[in-house]
């Protein structure tokens, strides 16, 4: 293997992007396949995905990837040739997942600029051998060669859409799903109508069109597989599926379809809307780039790939513009500038521009949710449990940075749900629950926040055990523990090292995680709450701001320098009466409401002054989590919306979350409340 030529090197970025998309499809497809190993269409899709990956890797000269992808291809080919049921053991899937993971590791290495040399990609040797053996198992001569890609990517030529094993309306995209849910919510029924037309039909396109028209007389079409365009252009075999919402009974729907000439059968399946969500996440095949490329006017034309650095530059520039605009308005208000009405307009346009640019930074949660079906599958398998993951609202959008950061804490919560929440199948059966546990992950907008909920129907958190443990560990006195409310006790699981898990498992370790998850959510300006009911399950609620780029902050001044404190941390502003200051264990504290809280002098804390200043006359009381502190300042300037500028790494100072340019042109450092309190 040789290093890519300079021309190829230019393609690395593109390669990585596209390969990641393929790998996501691969992961998702594998999860689906495990529950439907004979699904011919899915196998074909997976075959095509690894085949495409192989081709891309070959072009780039990454031989190790080629070998691995080829070996996977052989396995899919083997499964496809009808060996599905008997060969598809959990061990085989472990192997396939491992191979997918190895491919992913390779792509990540490429993305880090590690131009592979020699076997620089690492050797998946053992894996390739194992896959080859799996492909050869029971297969006499087939497999190894890796036949040409069937179907060649023509939409709909993927054969019969009759993937019985997958949810009937798997092909709907997020938007269509939303429409479907809304219709169902308002009382309509959802149907999957699978129509077969006479193979000798002369005009299949118009025929399909006639069927759609006929179905529209009894209901509303939400989506079709293949797409409407594909149907009208005759890019399908003899069958297609229509997602229909209707207030009519199934028979009426069937009659409408059958009453079209040359329709040979019409199977109408009522669909439970929940049916589609499990683990399929989004319409998996639509996410496969090859499909998107071939569908003509697909998603590809409606979106543009932009480097994130350019987007960030744009955000920064708009930030500058907002500041300049604020400065101009500021001067006008101070009557330093005449106004002919244009200044107000500038302000309006600028803030619209700003929100438009902020929207560019928003990405759907799908990007992280898409990892979870695989994670749940692995967790369930390792702990010997049966778990169904239902995902809703994955189209909900959030600031890119938050989406990138929320994955880990959510994964912690999911681990807890599967490992500690969901009971083993036998235990579930004993208590009268279905053997398969349900974990539901949902997201939705709520004002300027996004709420993500993770709900399981497991055994719940044992509050009594927390009570005992709190006493054992000396966290609470026996009396405190006895009177502690369930809510108060639940708070304890967020404290570092406090875990109620009886067994230390491979999966969740020692219950570190809840505190880490909470800290991570709070670092994003969010909140994490947990509710539980013994024997019924646990609900974790994560509340996140839509964006981190703008915050509302309280500006305070000390020693002539202006600082910003995030508004959500502010509790109150207090006048400091010197007689109210006491010293406890050598630290100054302030009497506040019913208790005492530490009094922190900003200038001392920041190192501007050594002395406890006696001139502090005001204190801003802040709260983060359960801690409170009074921050002594010289002057309070006021509340303002700030565009956060991150500091470059060599300017990173503990306690400083970023900087903002004020309307006056001055710079304010934004302080991290959790560092102050």
């Amino acid at each position, binding site marked *: 293997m040789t290093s890519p030529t300079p021309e190829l090197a230019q393609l690395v970025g593109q390669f990585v992007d596209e390969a990641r998309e393929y790998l996501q499809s691969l992961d998702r497809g594998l999860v689906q396949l495990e529950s439907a190993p004979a699904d011919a269409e899915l196998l074909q899709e997976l075959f095509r995905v690894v085949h495409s990956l192989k081709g891309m890797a070959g072009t780039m000269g990454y031989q190790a990837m080629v070998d691995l992808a080829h070996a996977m291809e052989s396995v899919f080919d083997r499964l496809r040739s009808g060996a599905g049921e008997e060969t598809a053991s959990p061990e085989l899937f472990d192997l396939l997942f491992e191979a997918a993971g190895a491919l992913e590791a390779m792509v990540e290495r490429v993305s880090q600029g590690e131009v592979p040399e020699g076997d620089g990609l690492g050797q998946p040797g053992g894996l390739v051998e194992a896959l080859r053996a799996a492909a050869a198992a029971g297969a006499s001569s087939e497999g190894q060669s890796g036949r040409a890609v069937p179907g060649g990517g023509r939409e709909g030529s993927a054969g019969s859409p009759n993937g019985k094993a997958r949810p009937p309306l798997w092909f709907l995209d997020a938007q269509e799903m939303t429409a479907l849910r809304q219709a169902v919510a308002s009382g309509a029924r959802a149907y999957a109508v699978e129509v077969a037309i006479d193979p000798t039909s*002369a*005009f299949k*396109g*118009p025929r399909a*069109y*006639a069927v759609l*028209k006929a179905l529209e007389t009894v209901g509303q079409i939400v989506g079709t597989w293949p797409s409407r365009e594909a149907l*009208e252009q005759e890019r399908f075999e003899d069958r297609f599926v229509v997602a229909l919402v209707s207030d009519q009974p199934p028979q009426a729907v069937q009659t409408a379809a*059958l*009453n*079209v*000439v*040359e329709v040979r059968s019409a199977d109408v399946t009522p669909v439970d809307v929940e049916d589609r969500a499990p683990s399929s996440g989004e319409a998996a095949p639509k996410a496969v780039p090859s499909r998107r490329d071939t569908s003509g006017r697909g998603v590809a034309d409606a979106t543009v790939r932009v480097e994130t650095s350019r987007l960030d530059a744009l955000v920064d520039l708009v930030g500058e513009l907002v500041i300049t605009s604020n400065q101009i308005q500021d001067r006008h208000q101070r009557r330093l500038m005449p106004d002919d009405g244009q200044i107000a307009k500038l302000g309006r346009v600028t803030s619209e521009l700003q929100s438009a640019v902020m929207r560019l930074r928003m990405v759907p949660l799908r990007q992280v949710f898409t990892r979870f079906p695989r994670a749940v599958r692995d967790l369930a398998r390792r702990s010997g449990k049966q778990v169904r993951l239902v995902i809703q609202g994955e189209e909900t959008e959030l600031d890119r940075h938050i989406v990138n950061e929320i994955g880990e804490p959510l994964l912690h919560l999911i681990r807890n749900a599967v490992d500690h929440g969901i009971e083993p199948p036998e235990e579930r059966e004993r208590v009268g629950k279905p053997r398969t546990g349900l974990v539901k992950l949902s997201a939705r907008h709520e004002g300027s926040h996004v709420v993500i909920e993770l709900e399981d129907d497991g055994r719940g958190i044992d509050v009594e055990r927390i009570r005992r443990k709190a006493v054992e560990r000396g966290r609470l006195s026996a009396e405190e523990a006895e009177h502690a409310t369930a809510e108060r006790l639940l708070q304890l699981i967020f404290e570092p090292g406090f875990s109620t898990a009886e067994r230390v498992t491979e999966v969740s370790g020692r219950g570190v995680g809840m505190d880490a998850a909470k800290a991570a959510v709070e670092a994003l300006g969010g909140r994490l709450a947990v509710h539980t009911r013994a024997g019924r399950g646990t609900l974790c609620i994560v509340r996140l701001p839509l964006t981190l780029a703008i915050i509302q902050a309280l500006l305070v001044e000390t020693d002539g320098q202006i600082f910003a404190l995030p508004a959500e941390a502010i509790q109150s502003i207090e006048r400091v009466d010197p007689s109210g200051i006491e010293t406890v264990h050598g630290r100054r504290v302030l009497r506040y409401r019913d208790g005492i809280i530490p009094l922190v002098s900003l200038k001392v804390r920041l190192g501007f002054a050594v002395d406890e200043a006696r001139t502090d006359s005001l204190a801003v009381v802040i709260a983060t989590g359960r801690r409170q502190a009074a921050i002594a300042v010289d002057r309070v300037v006021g509340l303002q919306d700030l565009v956060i500028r991150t500091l470059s790494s060599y300017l990173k100072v503990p306690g400083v979350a970023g900087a903002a340019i004020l309307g006056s042109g001055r710079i304010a450092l934004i302080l991290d409340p959790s560092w102050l309190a």
Partner: protein
Amino acid sequence: MGAKRILITDDTAFMRMTLRKVLESNGYEVVGEAEDGLDAVEKYKELRPDIVTMDITMPKMDGITAIREIMKIDPQARIIVCSAMGQKPMVIEALNAGAKDFLVKPFQPQRVLEAIQKVGG
């Protein structure tokens, strides 16, 4: 179920005859024949047939215009479009104009009967 009354529209006498034979030998009543779109609209008003077969390319008034005109007179009209092989895009237009279904020439008798049965309800 009473025998369906059918109006055949086609500008060639040969096609009209072919259709008439198929239909009559299967117990349907052909109540009239129209030679062009305009003729079909007039005959529809006069005969009120249960089902109309409609050729697309015809003199004076084409089939699609005729469908629109008939649908204006009777929104419940049941019209089957008869298309030649090369007229695929016209079929969709005809369906949008209100035709209930379509047939492709050359006719296979079973398809014609299937269409009449299905459209006839």
